[in-house]
């Protein structure tokens, strides 16, 4: 440890600490401009000047680059220091009179008008961007050129640099906003089309585990091998760049499939203009917009930042529509009603609900619908036909025009609105077919997983020990999903708790006396349930009953007729056919 004195205060700091860090640690303020915690000290701006009174190189020094020494005595508020800083600020203000950050700095020092020749620069030549590009991004795409009054930051020969990875770090670190990245919207990946997201982010607020992740495609460290700022500054050392996806094999006795759904892609309904027209958003995007932790901080806003004056909510987007999905997605009516309530609450704007039928079927749902009828939400019975921005009348100018048929009034309407929310339906996940195949279960016509019986076995599937829960089995709301999940968990626990497995009673049997040991059945059995055992002179096939699932493939294939199937013997099936044909012949 080193002991030094700053403004008559004795401080103990670690070796390698700079005077600036020591002062900051003790709560002594020193103004800085070119200093950044993540970068090496540079000492370019001279804002952080302090006076070394004793124990070191006497005189004014940049505190950011001055290492703390034993017995050093420093003053940060001497008249010499303040005078020098004021001069620096005055010179900066003369160079950048229109930069708010410099104006504030100068104001704090009591400078009204600089005495020097006034220019109009944005860049203070602090070099943060240059050092960030070199030290953090590791690409050195920008640097200083020229000297003295000609000095400026640019790319080589002032042409777009091929070395630049458009990470945006220089623009982010610039204190005066002198660097603008063209097409910044395109390089940042956006959160649900609503706002930018960073390379490190929590996928969504309810994520389990709720941990931030690094987007390797965006992260500078993964692109250039440099940066590593997050690792340096993470207090709990939680950053691990080496971490990779890994496959883990777990042996289990029961499986619950709760793979969920995929929201309908609204851009498939081209006439609604999703992705083409501004302010046409999906239900999920509106939901995110309403979230206080979301990209708009919970405000319902249009793309230009205004609050909407009228909003239309389209029901049944991708549901109850023979062009897309015939089924009802069950949840959209209620979430659309919730949206209407939220829009009214947050903006007080006019809300139009365009519905085919109002399906408020759950506990307390009808009451909520009635409440909204009282909240001045305008309900139009008729599916939205089209959203367009082609105005026909002056009041339609600059608005989105919703075309629909009001079936209760029997007229076709054009309604100008500011925002359109598309209540997208629920669809099976893209990989539902592969998952179903993997677990040996069926899918219903709509593509969702099929339960064993719609009424008597709603969480079981055709495969023993595989259960389904939630929207992977069919569109359902949260209460229903929770109920089904609990039922599936109970079903799985019942299996585990039993400690035994019930096996198929309809197994194959091989008559030892008839079997000639040809081994045809052994190759056909999908469960390797048939083994070849040696008898005196020859060998025969024998069924391991615990493994046999009773498909009867071996029975059909046995050329000697040695194999039979319990409950489905050849004689029984013959009898069944004879009976059927005889009865038919008599009838």
């Amino acid at each position, binding site marked *: 440890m080193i002991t030094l004195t700053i403004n008559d205060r004795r401080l103990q700091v670690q070796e390698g600490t700079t005077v600036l860090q020591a002062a900051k640690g003790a709560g002594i303020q020193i103004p800085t401009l070119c200093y950044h915690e993540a970068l090496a000290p540079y000492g370019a701006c001279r804002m952080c000047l302090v006076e070394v009174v004793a124990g070191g190189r006497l005189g004014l020094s940049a505190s950011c680059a001055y290492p703390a020494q034993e017995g050093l005595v420093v003053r940060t508020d001497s008249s010499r220091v303040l005078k020098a800083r004021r001069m620096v600020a005055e010179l900066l203000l003369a160079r950048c009179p229109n930069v708010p950050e410099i104006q504030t700095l100068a104001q704090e020092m009591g400078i009204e008008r600089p005495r020097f020749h006034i220019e109009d620069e944005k860049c203070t030549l602090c070099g943060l961007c240059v050092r960030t590009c070199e030290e953090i991004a590791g690409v050195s795409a920008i640097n200083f050129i020229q000297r003295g009054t000609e000095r400026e930051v640019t790319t080589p020969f002032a042409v777009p640099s091929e070395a630049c990875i458009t990470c945006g770090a220089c623009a982010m670190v610039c204190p005066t906003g002198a660097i603008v990245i063209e097409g910044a919207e395109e390089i940042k990946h956006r959160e649900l089309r609503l706002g930018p997201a960073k390379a490190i982010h929590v996928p969504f607020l309810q994520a389990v585990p709720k941990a931030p992740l690094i987007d390797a495609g965006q992260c500078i460290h993964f692109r250039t091998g440099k940066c590593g700022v997050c690792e340096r500054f993470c207090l709990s050392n939680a950053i691990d760049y080496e971490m990779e996806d890994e496959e883990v094999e777990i042996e289990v006795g029961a499986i619950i499939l709760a793979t969920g759904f995929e929201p309908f892609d609204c851009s498939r309904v081209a006439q609604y203009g999703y992705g083409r027209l501004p302010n046409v958003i999906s239900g999920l995007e509106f939901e995110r917009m309403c979230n206080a932790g979301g990209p708009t901080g919970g405000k319902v806003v249009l793309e230009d930042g205004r609050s909407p004056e009228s909003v239309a909510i389209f029901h049944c987007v991708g549901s109850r529509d023979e062009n897309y999905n015939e089924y009802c997605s069950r949840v959209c009516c209620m979430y659309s009603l919730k949206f209407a309530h939220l829009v009214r609450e947050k903006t007080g704007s006019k809300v139009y609900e365009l519905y085919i039928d109002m399906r408020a079927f759950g506990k307390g749902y009808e009451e909520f619908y009635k409440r909204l009828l009282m909240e001045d939400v305008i309900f139009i019975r008729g599916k939205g036909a089209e959203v367009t921005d082609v105005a026909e009348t002056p009041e339609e100018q600059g608005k989105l025009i919703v075309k629909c048929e009001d079936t209760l009034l029997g007229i076709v309407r054009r309604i100008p609105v500011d925002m359109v929310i598309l209540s997208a339906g629920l669809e099976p996940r893209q990989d539902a077919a592969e998952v179903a195949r993997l677990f040996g279960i069926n899918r219903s016509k709509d593509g969702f997983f099929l339960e064993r019986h719609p009424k008597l076995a709603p969480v079981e599937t055709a495969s023993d020990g595989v259960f389904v829960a939630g929207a992977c089995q069919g569109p359902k709301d949260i209460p229903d999903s929770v109920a089904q999940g609990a039922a599936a968990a109970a079903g799985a626990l019942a299996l585990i708790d039993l400690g035994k497995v019930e096996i198929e009673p309809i197994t194959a049997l091989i008559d030892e006396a008839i079997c000639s040991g040809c081994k045809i059945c052994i190759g056909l059995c999908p469960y390797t349930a048939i083994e070849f055992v040696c008898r005196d002179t020859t060998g025969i096939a024998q069924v391991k009953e615990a493994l046999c699932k009773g498909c009867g493939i071996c029975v059909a294939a046995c050329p000697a007729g040695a194999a039979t199937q319990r409950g489905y013997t050849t004689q029984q099936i013959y009898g069944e056919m004879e009976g059927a*044909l005889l009865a038919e012949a008599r009838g």
Partner: protein
Amino acid sequence: MSGKNSFEPRIIGFLCRWCSYQGADLAGTSRRHYPPNMVPVRVMCSGRVDPTFVLKAIADGADGVLICGCHPGDCHYQSGNFNAMRRYPLLMKALEQFGIEKERVRLEWISASESEKFALVVKEMTETVRRLGPLEWNRRLFQEGQRKT
């Protein structure tokens, strides 16, 4: 079986327990209409259908036989329906040699959710066999036996 117009074909249908029988069940619970000419015989898997079952059905007087299983790749027993798929062309070859029209024996993949397809297949099959007329293999066998003695 008086005239050809009132001919009601008799069809035996081998339905696998997991997909096609479930599909047939669903057709029932969904109140789908299909002709009553097909009598279902439930088997655990379409792979259980021994080609002799088909011959036996024909010998017993069936006018047509329908074999239904899970869609390829969807078999509850992983690969049972592939066995049915491989046996079917061989069986057709044998039937051809007997002089039996190939339309009388049909292999179809029907999943547990395809009640509509099930009803359609049974309807089509019935119409096809009705058009082909009675097979009456049992009577012909009987006459053949009498002629020889």
